[in-house]
């Protein structure tokens, strides 16, 4: 697939690729905060359990904290990117006049929206996948005696 067909004619694919990789890396680094919180909570609970046998792990949502915010910020950043793509057609010249009078009605929209929409979906999808992975770790690695009684309680209580 030729990705250039889905980008503004004057977009710089290399710069975009770098930006995309940077946002993904930033989001993944942010997501590590869950592992940090979990790795600190589990030994702590085990120590406390010696004195208070009924103690439970903090709820998953608390441990998750802002770890997925990086993906959401990256997804939201795709809205100004679409605006920038549009602005490329009015910068230095009015190539938007040409784009708007092309026989293919969707050419301008395709070039301005496809990549931002797909990238936003990618970041949201990755965020969902990591949420599931984090919860799977929380649910499966934590000893049963420290887990809340129900899945729902584990998620939100």
């Amino acid at each position, binding site marked *: 697939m030729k990705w250039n067909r889905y980008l503004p004619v004057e977009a710089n694919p290399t710069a975009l690729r770098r930006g995309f990789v940077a946002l993904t890396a930033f989001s993944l680094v942010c997501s590590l905060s869950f592992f940090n919180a979990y790795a600190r909570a589990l030994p702590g609970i085990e120590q406390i359990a010696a004195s208070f046998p009924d103690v439970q792990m903090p709820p998953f949502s608390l441990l998750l904290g802002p770890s997925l915010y990086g993906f959401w910020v990256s997804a939201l950043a795709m809205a100004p990117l679409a605006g920038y793509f549009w602005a490329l057609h009015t910068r230095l010249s*009015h*190539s938007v006049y040409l784009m708007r009078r*092309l026989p293919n009605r969707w050419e301008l929209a395709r070039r301005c929206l496809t990549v931002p929409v797909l990238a936003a979906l990618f970041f949201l999808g990755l965020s969902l996948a990591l949420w599931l992975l984090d919860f799977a770790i929380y649910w499966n690695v934590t000893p049963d005696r420290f887990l809340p009684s129900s899945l729902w309680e584990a998620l939100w209580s």
Partner: protein
Amino acid sequence: MLQLNHVSKTYHLTTHALHQVSLSVAPGEIVGLLGENGAGKTTLLKCILGLLSYQGSITLDGVPIGRDNIARLSFATCEHSFFPTLTPQEHRVFYREHFPTWRDQRFEALMDFFRLPGNRPLRAMSVGQQNQVEVILALCQGADYILMDEPFAGNDVFNREDFYKVLLGILEPTETVILSTHLLTEINHFVSRAVLLWDGQIVGDVSTADLDEQGLTVLDYVKEKYHYQPDRVSSALSQLSGEEDDLCGNR
């Protein structure tokens, strides 16, 4: 036939850029769209191209202008509608992909004639060269109606002369040009019809053949329609010099 019926355009609810403009342009005509700044020339061209919303109707051979027939119109504007970072050759590829009627031979011939560098980004060219590429792209799109809005602003007089001559030489009988310009003296032998806009309305529409019969030029016609007062400048000057004399006398 390009047909405009009672086309009106209002900006910001109060500014009437066009008011009830009706006009027919037949295939093969070369129409000069004339008028002072703010007369509505650019607005009219943009309405025809669908770049602006308007009241009234604009049809091409009886069919409203839309995606099915928009390729029959091309546009060259002094605002430039090319991609500045692309070279003329890259534009050629883009146009060829989107306009099946693209005229490749004409493109090559015109690029050669004006000695334009095919592989230099347009932003690295002079304004005159950029204007030439803008017009060349409009001419080579393969459109039946070629709309030009002050396309030669920034080109020297010899360059413009060359362009008029080349245009007359290459245009096919069915190709129609609507040229908006201020350069009234230069287009006299180029246009076959002059349409005069004033304050958003058509105040004059005449063929240059009729003007020739009357011994008038396009400029004479425009002056007449605009009620130009030839003695305006001399009376203003004499009034100014009179004031100066008075001032000197008083001293």
